């Protein structure tokens, strides 16, 4: 156990140069993009050159690029990601407040996707070429072919507008309810901690449509990957041996085949998780979800440098951690795998 912790720490430390690279790259890229934030933010009525210049000084844009970069890196090292001009608040606070919303959505969506994709993929692999296999293929193709904002709006139209089953698709909780005190930032967990079942149900209700939208989006790669690796595993010698020894079918499939087939699925899941977290943007916009994606999009449109830089850094960090977790999970699924 100790060695896992040690190796994990070494892996994270080794990621630091990568994060630094990401940081510098984003920093330079943002400044190469057209659009002068000073003009954008000093655009009040009657604002002229003097106001723009004052804004430029306030944002530190009057300094040379290397000077700005050094100041920025110094700030980041002390945990200061700068201030967002769009919200007027420290970027770190904004991200900390909004990341749980995005994570909650992504995790629930991923669980939904896995809960659907694994059985579908396994069934399809057990009966390749059957009607069921084709149906799985159709569902997957439809899910991946439809842009998330289209499926999101469609779900809203059907389940909210026409049927009235879903709560109004705005935010994480019914506006007329009082949110429980924030402990973890995950509304589902916080409401349970507070023992407030009404809020829990409301939050779960709000979460369903956006989570289904996201799940539809990642269903295809997960199900296809499960099917492919299950097919490979089912054709393996060890499965034939297990079958010939007369082991029950469920045991052969779930223990012997699935355990061997799960590694590529794990990898895909890890990649999907990171992708979803970033690709949430459209879903967050459609469902007014107060996550990091929609926050960063607004900032990007406003040439607001600090939040975009902070977001990219955050995503890079999460990607590093997720990769590590996936590698650790590999070790559990297959004890021969050791992370280095």
């Amino acid at each position, binding site marked *: 156990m100790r060695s896992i912790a040690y190796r994990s720490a070494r892996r994270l430390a080794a990621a630091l140069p990568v994060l630094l690279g990401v940081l510098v790259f984003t920093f330079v890229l943002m400044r190469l993009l*057209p*659009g*002068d*934030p000073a*003009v*954008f*933010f*000093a*655009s*009040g*009525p*009657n*604002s*002229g*050159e*003097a*106001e*723009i210049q*004052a*804004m430029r000084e*306030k944002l530190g844009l009057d300094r040379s690029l290397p000077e700005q970069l050094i100041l920025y890196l110094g700030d980041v090292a002390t945990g200061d990601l700068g201030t967002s*001009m*769009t*919200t*007027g*608040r420290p970027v770190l606070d*904004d991200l900390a*407040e909004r990341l749980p919303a995005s994570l909650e959505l992504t995790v629930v969506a991923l669980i939904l996707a896995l809960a659907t994709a694994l059985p579908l993929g396994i069934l399809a692999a057990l009966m390749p070429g059957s009607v069921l296999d084709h149906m799985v293929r159709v569902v997957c193709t439809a899910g991946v072919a439809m842009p998330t904002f289209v499926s999101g*709006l469609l779900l*809203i*139209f059907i389940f*909210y*507008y026409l049927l*009235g089953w879903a709560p*109004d*698709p*705005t*935010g994480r909780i019914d*506006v*007329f309810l*009082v949110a429980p005190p924030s402990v973890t930032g995950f509304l589902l967990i916080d409401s349970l901690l507070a023992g407030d079942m009404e809020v829990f149900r409301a939050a779960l209700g709000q979460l369903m449509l956006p989570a289904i939208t996201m799940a539809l989006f990642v269903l295809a790669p997960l199900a296809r990957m499960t099917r492919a690796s299950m097919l490979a595993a089912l054709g393996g010698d060890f499965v034939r041996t297990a079958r010939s020894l007369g082991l029950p079918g469920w045991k052969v499939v779930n223990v012997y085949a699935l355990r061997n087939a799960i590694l590529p699925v794990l990898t895909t899941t890890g990649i999907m998780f990171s992708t979803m977290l970033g690709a949430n943007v459209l879903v967050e*916009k*459609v469902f*007014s979800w*107060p996550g990091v994606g*929609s*926050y960063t999009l*607004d900032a990007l*449109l*406003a*040439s607001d440098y600090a939040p975009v830089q902070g977001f990219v850094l955050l995503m890079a960090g999460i990607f590093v951690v997720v990769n590590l977790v996936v590698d650790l999970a590999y070790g559990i699924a297959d004890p021969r795998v050791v992370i280095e």
Partner: protein
Amino acid sequence: MLHTRPRGRLRARLIAAAASAALTLTAIAGAAQAQSREETLRVVTGGQVNTLDAGMQGITRDGFGLNWNIYDRLVSWDRKKFGDGYIYDFDKMKGELAESFTISDDGLTVTFKLRPDATFHDGSPVTAEDVKWSLDRAVSLKGPGAQMATGSLKSPDQFKIIDARTIQVTLDKPDRLAVPNLAVVFPVILNSKLARQHATAEDPWATEWLKENQASGGAYKVSSFKAGQQVVLDRFDDWKSGPLPYFKRIIVQTVPEASTRASLIERGDADLSIDLQSSDVLALKDRGAVKVVSIPQVNAFQMIAFNTRMAPFDNVKVRQAVAHALPFDDMFTAALYRRGAPLWGASWKDLPDNGKFPQRLPYATNLDKAKGLLAEAGFPNGFKTTFSFNVGSAATSEPIAALIKESLGKIGIDVTVEKVPDAQMGTLISEKKLPFFTESAIAWLPSADYFFRVFFQGETRWNYGSFVNEELAELTTKARYERDPAAYEAAAKRMVKIAADEVPVVMLWQPALDAVMARNIDGFTYWFHRQTDYRSLTRTK
């Protein structure tokens, strides 16, 4: 003594903390009970509130709207009925926090008498000292200062405390926009004692603190504020600057998707939205499930600008030719579904009938005339140019651009359409780099000399045509201090004439503001900032 003092202080602090905790708890419980749907107004908006302080550079339009409801100003405007709603009456000012105000005969001194019983949210009385500090702040901050200067309000020296309830404003010249400038969103009256506690040497006007906190005495107070997501307002029951508002609680929620906002209102989950897509507004109106109050934006306009400092648009004949080749009517239909007031097609030749601006100018689609003018300008075979618009306005600008391209093609002008990201558009306009583009704008103070001062001269972004005209500059400067209404009107007419002849920009139309609301909501008022005044809304039974 040495022992007891700290201990005493600690105990006092503990008691204070316990008391405030208890107060907060009762406040929360009370708020929860008072939260009946009937007296709660749920507003959905596509924009977002990013600050509570209108003095912050980069504040959004929704930010201004919030400011309007949580702070009071000394004065405000009256309103007049328009259709199912109201429109603010720029010619009729009234006191808000000031019970009354008088202007001296020479127009150089304005004296404000404060309401005797007005208090801030924390219960402290509103005094002349608060007013002075607030006005000092408004003229000293960068962005607000630029606005206040358009009414000759430039320096703290101009504000004098006479007594606890009287404050005097002195002017160098009798500026007609001095008092109106005290009614815009910047010169709000702040609780100066509270704000000053959070001021520092580098930040003497407490801008950092006021971004997320309020020091106000307006009709509503902010009870929760999540930047970019949601603001909850509670009524301040001791408000004295007007009749007590109907709604006890206002929830303003950011819902980026326009179609979702429309569904929310149609299903009765939300009560009001002012920024739906025109197509949704029409559909909702047809289905009859909601009330649509459509009010022309009297202080706004959409226009096509030429860069008058760049060939070929430095040639007035070219500008006139293009103005005559614009497919006004088709653009109006395609971009706005004709929801607004046209600014083309006037019939006057020498001088307009009145000096109001924006008003209709004598341009209409006439391709033969356009061709003739183009030939006179020395471009019988036309030329190539680029027409730009910002991506954020694509819903209206895209059809405009497509129709212009088609129509100008008929007189030989080859137009390339360019979509520009919003942030970049501002930069390009400020640097006067675009040859030909469309934008829409508003002037808070719809007075002719102000329009011409802001939009037709100077080096700011707002001089869209990059226009320089000495006569116009002289006229606006003089008109600003003109006290004789007849002389002002004459000058204004001449300004309109110059705008029509020289066409640095072609005025297209004033879009209507469509406020979509539940059928039982009444009292919507159009204000210069194009946001909702919650104080005037009611729900009929």
